């Protein structure tokens, strides 16, 4: 079995492949990178940089989008 690292995505504990990029994390979650905004350890990661940022043990990732609101 491939080793996995623990991260927290949107408040949920998840396991991802070691050295995975944020783009790969999105792909594993079947999320379109154009439809979400990514915050990695409280820092916004712009779309073009998603493939350059790798995820490490204990990282906090927030994936947000627009929902109905007033």
């Amino acid at each position, binding site marked *: 079995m491939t080793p996995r690292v623990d991260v927290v995505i949107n408040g949920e504990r998840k396991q991802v492949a070691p050295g995975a990029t944020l783009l790969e994390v999105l792909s594993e979650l079947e999320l379109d990178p154009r439809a979400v905004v990514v915050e990695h350890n409280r820092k916004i990661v712009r779309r073009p940089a998603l493939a350059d940022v790798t995820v490490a043990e204990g990282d906090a990732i927030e*994936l947000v989008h627009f929902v*109905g609101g*007033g």
Partner: protein
Amino acid sequence: MTTAVETIRDTPLTIGGHPFHSRLMVGTGKYPDMDTMVRAIEASGAEVVTVAVRRVNLDRSKETSVLHFLDPKRVFLLANTAGCYTAADAIRYARLAREAGFNDFVKLEVIGDEETLLPDVQGLLEAAQVLVQEGFKVLAYTNEDLVTALRLEDAGCAAVMPLASPIGSGLGLLNPLSVRTIKRRLHVPVVVDAGVGTASDACVTMEQGVDGILMNTAIAAAQDPVAMAHAMRLATIAGRTAYLAGRMPRRDVAMPSSPTKGMLD
């Protein structure tokens, strides 16, 4: 901009250098379903449509993005910071919203009290200053306090949004004098946000001379949201047109409308 009557010409509402064709802005929350929301927005004639920033549901079987139903080419998406109780949180949400890539406008809310959802004006000013520095066009949701409104304008807000009454209350315009005073004293657009319950509330609000009105629950929670959206569109135009027309002075005594001369002996 043309109102219902061709003889009355209005200038477009311009916020942060951006002209908008409708003075009515609508929210996208609390609709019974997305189809009703889409039809209600269409019926309202609104161009500015507010949205909130929330976590994506990681269970992809539940599509929750409002962009799945709205065409950002046809509506102007105004992200809010609803639900934020500190300046830091509101700034964080605003930055995330801008990153979505539609525009640099934000409806800034910093809430200070859970029961009334009244704004924390200190946090609001703090967040407004930071976001203006970062190039945001800030539309600040505030109470009907003139001094706060003046400070928000000084901070560089693109528009100030005093409430008619508490969010989702449907109580209508509780303090017309304060809202008129804010409109009279500010140079940036004043858009009344929150508290409208029905069409007459929208009409009375626009009659105060404010530049626009934003509502969500009054439409979304109506028995027939699409019909109410249409009523709100008419009421906004009626109120604006009446303001431009200039109302007659109030009198405490009657004055006959028909001639008093020419009566029979």
